[in-house]
């Protein structure tokens, strides 16, 4: 299927061609690895501290009935804090040059992630089947540069297959919206 292959390449080209270049064939760094390491370690510590605080609140000690419900989580939180503190210290000493993600890369990541957020947001209102069809069609048209017909058809076919499989075959109801209701489901 040579046309499909070239389309796949076109996807990559279409998605990277507008990126500024630093002259070495690499897109400039959007964030360094060190930054992300530090943020992640802090997030862990924040969570660990929250767990410790809350475990302490509900009781992390001993009673006649044995360990209280906060006992185990409290120490888990403490250990998580210790491990993350060490990760943080290591990250602080890390090389500042190593990129985590370049601008071109993060743009590609957001090209799928932002539409996913919109997709899940709309799912609640218009139902999973319609949202999925629209999501697939729009993404194919926008990023893959497929024709409107092909994009739309692919979206509808995937949704119809899902509908047949879940609603009819396995009888597992998925979230439905007004269009399914109008069709009597």
């Amino acid at each position, binding site marked *: 299927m040579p046309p499909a292959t070239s389309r796949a390449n076109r996807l990559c080209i279409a998605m990277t061609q507008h990126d500024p270049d630093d002259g070495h064939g690499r897109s400039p760094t959007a964030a360094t690895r060190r930054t992300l390491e530090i943020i992640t370690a802090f997030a862990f510590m924040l969570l660990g501290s929250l767990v410790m605080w809350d475990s302490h609140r509900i009781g992390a000690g001993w009673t006649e009935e044995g360990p209280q419900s906060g006992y185990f989580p409290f120490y888990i939180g403490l*250990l998580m804090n210790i491990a993350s503190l060490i990760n943080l210290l290591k990250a602080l000493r890390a090389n500042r040059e190593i990129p985590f993600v370049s601008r071109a890369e993060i743009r590609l990541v957001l090209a799928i992630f932002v539409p996913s957020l919109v997709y899940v947001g709309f799912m609640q209102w218009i139902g999973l089947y319609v949202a999925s069809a629209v999501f697939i069609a729009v993404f194919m048209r926008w990023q893959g540069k497929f024709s409107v017909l092909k994009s739309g058809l692919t979206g509808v076919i995937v949704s119809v297959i899902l509908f047949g499989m879940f609603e009819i075959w396995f009888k597992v109801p998925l979230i439905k919206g007004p269009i399914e209701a109008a069709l009597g489901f």
Partner: protein
Amino acid sequence: MDEVQALFQGFAVALSPVNIGLMFVGILLGVLIGVLPGLGGANGVAILLPLTFSMNPTSAIIMLSCIYWGALFGGAITSILFNIPGEPWSVATTFDGYPMAQQGQAAQALTAAFTSSFIGALVAVLMITFTAPLVAKFALKFGPPEFFAVQLLTFCSFVGMNKGAPWKTLAAMFLGFTLAAIGMNKGAPWKTLAAMFLGFTLAAIGMDNVTGQLRLTFGFEPLMKGFDFLIAVIGLFGIGEILVTMEEGLSFKGKSAKIDAKVVLETWKKLPRYWATYLRSSLVGCWMGITPGGATPASFMGYGIAKRFSPNGKNFGKGEIEGVLAPETAAHAAGTSALLPMLTLGIPGSPTAAVLLGGLLVWGLQPGPLLFVEQKDFVWGLIASMYLGNIAGLIVVLLTVPWFAAILRIPFAIIAPVILVICAVGAYTVHSSMFDVWLMLVFGVMGYVFKKLNYPLAPLVLALVLGDMAENAFRQSLLGSSGSMLVFVSNPLVGSITGLALVMLFWPFIGQWLGRLRKRRGEIDDDDVVEV
């Protein structure tokens, strides 16, 4: 030979027409999952798990475990033809598989990979057949301290096996524990965390669904209470993988594959001379599968050991057939033997085994040593299906490779949104909750960041699954001893397990120290593999 008799009963269970049909469906789905980026063994099984809730448990596990075998087979296809490892455990297969494909030997490489996978699995299944009943019988004597010690060992070996970053492993593991603990104390911690997660996503949505979540606390099996690890698996492995793949901007420079009977037979003729490699890789794989190293480090170790021992060692990386069969054998042996601790102790050896364990609970089976006593049909049906499933798998992959290779040529602009939709459906079906779908996206971002920062995902998922069990065993042990930690070293059995666990826990530091010592002597250890 009780085992042999039980096994034949198992074959009788597994050989019903429905189960054979499900076996083939599972293998085909599994290969598809293994081939597609963003869908892997663990989250593929997680997505399909809700569909099996109403099935008979034996049929359900036969289908789901066959998906797992299929995914193990499928990973090799993309590695060899496209130099894209479809699964983490097939990374090592690309080292020699892709060069072989470039030299026009794709068919030989694929045949060798599939056959080796099959042999690795077969060795592991034989091992399971004969040792599992013994382990289960032994484990029947376990009390809470022993169980906690074994669970401790499980987690400590993650730290020990992971040569990369022990502290990251620890942090990831504790995160898993924390998430699991949320379910235990249904009240406030859940809200605290739910609020935090909601802060990440959209504050408006989910509150109703949070109360919807509470549905879990009555009616569901103990482990499924609270935070659902299936959502975490789908997000971390599925969405995370899509984001990573997206970033790399897939370039499709694949080789086409045609396998005919002649090539297969010629390759098969060559394979017996590598019996020693098979043996070493199978042993490494079985060991790594039982201790929860998992298939990925096993495949690297299999490759590294073969490289060291092979007379053609210096040709490795240039298209040496031995470099394909060594990692494939080890990966499949590890993937299969990961089910041994799951069946006998209720402790999964890999993320996929963890998902299968979650399945057992949903179908109303209590994993652990009693399974071998109370659910003979189920256990032996599953073990028999491992033999049959792998034979079916070998036949299916050899016949359908061109078809699956064609699927890989579908542009990523179609694949990416379709997989996302499948993941969303999978997340939604777990509890019919929109909140879970949002949570999946949050986990997706986490998976992406964790993958790039080398925070391991497997211990996180395992801790999430085992958290409740480990806490219960821990609390019961302490209750029995009125709070004395000495209960974990109170008899030779529990003492040695705890001791082994501590050795594993401190292994990275011992290793670093030994490494420094060795360096001083001028020796260089060259097969250090950083496992992600």
